[in-house]
C-alpha cells in the first residue's frame, strides 16, 4: 500500500503545483496510530501529510458538500465504495463534475474497527501495510502485526461489489479486494427478513431505543444534501424531537425512506453511530428490495442509471395499472 500512498502524494503534488486543483481532500495520520483523519491540503509542499493504509475506513465524499462553495477545483481520494458517493452527489446535482478531480483507489480492503486498537501497541508506528488473501500484514516499529481476513476485514469490505472506483480521473492500485460471490447475496438481510415479526420488532426496538438522536448518521451521509432537514424543522413539525423509542423509530424509518433508492451503501452512518445501531442493515434491506422490484443496480454504480424511485416513465409498470 506504500505504492498507492506514494502515487497519491505525487499526483496531488503535481495537481496543486500546476494549479489544476486548489485543494486535495485525502486521508492523513489520525489522533492515534490506529486511525486516520481527513486532511485538506492546499499547498504542494504539504502532500507528505497524505497517507493511505487499511485504516482509511471513512468516506470523504461528504466533505465535498461542505466545500460546495469553495472557489476552485478539488481533488478527492476515494475508495471503490466511496466512489459511488461521488455519483450520488453528481446525480443529486450537488457537485459539478468539472469542479472535481477524483483520485480513485482500487482498495485492497480495510481493517475492522476495534481490531487495530486491540493489536497495535499505542506507541508503535505503522510504516507499511499489505493485504492479500491471507490477511493483513502491518509492518510497525513494534514488529510485524498480522490479522487474518476473518478477524480483520471490515464487514462492508466483505460485501464489496466493486473495490475499483466506478468513477475516477486518476486510478491507483492495480487489483482491489475481490469479494466472495456468496457474500454479495444480501444474506444478512435475508436472514433477518425470515425472522418472525415479533423478533424483528424487538431486534430494531432494542437498537432504536438507544439512539441518542445525535444525527451523526445524517450528517455524515452523502445522500443527505438537504439545505434544511425535515428532522430539524419546527414548522411543519414532521417528527417530534424527543428521544424515545417511538420518535427514534420514526426518525430512522423516515431517514431510510429519504435515502431509499439513493443510498450507495458506503456505510458511513453505521460507522459513525455512537450507539452501534446496525443502520447498514436497514438501508441494505431497501437496496435489496429495490434491486428485486426494479432490477436496479447498486445506487451510485452508474452515472446514467438514475435512482429507481426518482423518475416518471410512461411505461412504468405502476402506471399501467
Amino acid at each position, binding site marked *: 500500500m506504500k505504492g498507492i500512498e506514494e502515487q497519491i502524494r505525487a499526483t496531488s503534488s503535481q495537481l496543486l503545483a500546476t494549479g489544476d486543483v486548489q485543494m486535495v481532500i485525502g486521508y492523513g495520520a489520525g489522533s492515534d496510530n490506529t486511525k486516520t483523519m481527513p486532511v485538506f491540503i492546499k499547498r504542494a509542499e504539504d502532500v507528505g501529510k497524505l497517507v493511505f493504509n487499511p485504516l482509511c475506513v471513512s468516506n470523504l465524499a461528504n466533505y465535498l458538500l461542505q466545500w460546495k462553495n469553495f472557489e476552485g477545483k478539488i481533488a478527492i481520494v476515494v475508495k471503490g465504495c466511496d466512489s459511488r458517493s461521488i455519483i450520488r452527489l453528481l446525480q443529486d446535482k450537488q457537485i459539478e463534475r468539472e469542479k472535481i478531480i477524483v483520485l480513485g483507489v482500487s482498495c485492497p480492503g480495510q481493517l475492522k474497527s476495534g481490531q487495530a486498537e486491540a493489536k497495535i501497541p499505542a506507541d508503535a508506528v505503522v510504516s507499511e501495510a499489505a493485504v492479500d488473501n491471507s490477511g493483513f500484514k502491518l509492518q510497525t516499529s513494534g514488529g510485524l502485526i498480522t490479522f487474518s481476513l476473518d478477524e480483520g476485514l471490515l464487514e462492508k469490505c466483505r460485501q464489496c461489489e466493486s473495490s475499483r472506483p466506478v468513477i475516477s480521473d486518476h486510478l491507483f492500485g492495480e487489483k482491489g479486494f475481490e469479494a466472495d460471490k456468496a457474500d454479495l447475496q444480501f444474506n444478512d438481510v435475508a436472514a433477518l427478513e425470515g425472522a418472525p415479526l415479533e423478533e424483528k420488532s424487538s431486534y430494531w426496538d432494542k437498537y432504536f431505543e438507544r439512539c441518542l438522536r445525535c444525527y451523526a448518521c445524517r450528517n455524515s451521509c452523502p445522500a443527505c444534501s438537504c439545505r434544511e432537514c425535515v428532522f430539524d424543522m419546527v414548522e411543519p413539525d414532521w417528527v417530534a424531537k424527543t428521544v424515545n423509542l417511538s420518535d427514534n423509530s420514526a426518525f430512522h424509518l423516515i431517514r431510510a425512506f429519504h435515502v431509499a433508492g439513493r443510498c450507495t451503501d458506503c456505510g458511513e452512518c453505521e460507522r459513525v453511530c455512537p450507539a452501534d445501531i446496525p443502520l447498514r442493515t436497514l438501508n441494505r434491506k431497501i437496496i435489496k428490495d429495490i434491486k428485486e422490484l426494479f432490477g436496479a443496480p447498486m445506487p451510485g454504480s452508474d452515472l446514467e442509471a438514475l435512482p429507481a424511485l426518482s423518475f416518471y416513465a*410512461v411505461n412504468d409498470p405502476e402506471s399501467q395499472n
Partner: protein
Amino acid sequence: MQRIGVFICWCGSNIGGVVDVPAVAREAAKFHGVVYSAEYKYMCSEPGQEMIVSAIKEHRLTGVVVASCSPALHELTFRKNIARAGLNPYMLEMANIREQCSWVHQHEPEKATKKAVDLVRRAVAKARKLEPLFESAIPVTKRALIIGGGIAGIQAALDIADAGNEVVIIEREPTIGGKMVLLDKTFPTLDCSACISTPKMVSAAQHPNIKIYTYAEVEEVKGYIGNFSVTIKQKARSVNSKCTGCGTCWAKCPTKNIPNEFDMGMSTRKAIYIPFPQAVPNRPVIDRERCRQFVKGKCGVCKKFCPTDAIDYEQGDEFVTENVGAILAATGYDLIDWTKIYGEYGYGKYPDVITGLHFERMVNASGPTGGKILRPSDGEQPKTIVFIKCVGSRDEAKAREYCSRACCMYTAKHAHQVLEKIPGSQVVIFYIDVRCAGKAYEEFYLKTLHEGAIYTRGRVSKIYPEGDKLIVKGADTLLGRPVEVVADLVVLATAMIPSAGSADVARTVGFTVDKDGFFQEAHPKLRPVETNTGGVFLAGACQGPKDIPDTVAQASGAAAKIIGLLSHSEIAGEPTISSVNEAICSGCLACQGICPYRAIEPKEIVERLPGKQVTRVVASVNSGLCQGCGACTVACRPGALNLKGFTNEQLLSEVDALCQ
C-alpha cells in the same frame, strides 16, 4: 387569527337520519378558531347559502367549513357562495359527512356522529391554516393542432375551422384520409367509404382556416394549455410546391414493382408516387429508400420530365414551429401483426389467409383486383370463404384482452358482399359472440344471416393447406363437435391496436396511455375526449377500438370541447398547483424527473453568503403545465415543494386533528 364558521348540513335525512347533526354543531362550536356553528336541512339550497353569507358578514368570518356531501359535488357551489360574501373562494374547507360517514355507517348512528365530529375537527384544523389563493389568467392562442389526418382528425378540423378558428393538421403519411379511404363499403348502410370521405378531405384542404402538413411528424411540444409551441418535422418529400400533380413523374419513373402500402401490398407503385388517385394533397413523394437516384446516385428521369421543375433531390427535412392553444390527438389504429402470433393459422405462410383490410381493398372497385374477390395465390374466384373473428382480440393468452368492436359488423358486411358478388358461394364465420350494438347493426347482421352466412360459434384451432385448398379445423361449441371446412380463402378479423408510434406521440405531447397503449381519457364517462393534460384532447381509435360512426361522433365532441376552450381569450389557471420554497430547495431536481407533466424546470438564483454572492440552481414550477397532482411534493425530501391548498402544514394539522 382565523375566525371560522362551521355549517353542518342534514342533507334531508341523508345525513340527518343517521348523524345527530345538532350535536355535531354543538361540538364544532368548541373547536379552536370556531366563532360560529350552525346546522340546516339543506346547506346547498338558497336559504342555506344565504345563511352562510349573512353569518360571514355578521360574525366577520375569515374561513368557512361546510360539513355535507362530497366536495366533488358542491365545493364549487360553496366557493362561489362565500365569494359572494367577500371571502376568497379558497377559504373554504369541506368535511364529507355523507358519502364518507352517514351513508356507510347507517346502522351505527352513535359511532357515525362521533366520526362526523372527528371529520369536522379535521376540516377546522385545515381551515385554520388556509390561505387565500388566486387564479391566474392564462392567455389562449386561438388555434388548434390535430395530430392525425384520418376521418377523426378531418371531422374535428372541419368543425373547429367552421367555428372560426385556425387549425393545423399533421399527417405522417403523404396524404390525409387515414384508414377510412381504404375501405370499400361501410356498414350498415353500405355506402361507399371513399365516396363519403374524399369530399371531406377536399373540404379540409380547401378550407381557409385549415393548414395541412402531410408527410410530417410532431418533433417537440412545449408550453401548456392555451399556449403550446409545436415543432413539426416536415420530412423531405423531394417534390416542391411547384408541383401541379400532373402525374408525368410517376408515369415515367423506371422503378416499378414496389408493393403498394395503400393496397396492402396487393398492387405495385413506383418510387415516386401518390398513394391513391384522390390523395390530398395531389403531390407525390419520392421513396428515397427505393428511388434509383438516391440508391444508385443516377437516374433523374422524373426531374427530366417534370414540366414545372418541381423535383428537388436536395430537399432536406424541415422544421416548422406552430403556436396553438389546443392539441387533438387522433392517431388512429393499426391491425395487430397476426403473422407473428398465430402459428396455427400459418404465420402468414399461406397466401390465401388474409386480413379484413386486404379483403376491403380487394372488394373495392378501385382496388388491385378492380373489385373482384380473388384468391391471392392463383387469382381464381373462391367459392368457400371462411371468416375468423377475434384474431388477436379477446385472446388474453396470446394477444389482446379487449374486444375490437368493429369486426362483428365488418365481417357481416364482408359475408354479405361475398354472397352478393359470388353466386353459389359459401360463407362460414367462426365467432365467439356476435356483438352488434349500434343503430341498425343487429338488423344488418340478421340480414346477412338470412342471406345464408353460416355462423359457427367456436375458435379455429388449425389451418393447413391441402392441394390448392385450405383445411380449416375448428369446433362448433354450440353443438359440441369438431368442424372441418375446406376453404378457398380465409379472412381474419384481426385486432385493432394503437397505431405504430402512438406511444411516441403520447410521450412527446405529454399525456398517458392505458395498459394496451391506447390514449388515456381523463374520465371514462364524464371526460371521454380529454386527456389528463390540460388543453390536450382525444378522438377516434387512438383512445380505444371504434367504428366510423363512433369515431366521427367523438371527433365532433372533441371539437366542441376545443371550440369551447378557444372561445375564451383568457382562461383561469388553477391556483391549486405546486410552488417551490427556494430557501429550502437544494436543487437536486428529484421533482423534475418525477413530474408527469414536465412542469418543473431548473432556475438559477443568486444568493448572498457572508462575503460573497453565489449562484445556485433551484426548481421552479410552470403554472400553466402543473396539474396539481402532488407527485413532486412527495418526491421532495425537505418539503421545499408544496401544493397550494394542500400544503404540508395543512395536511399535518389535519392528521394531528384526526389523531386527537
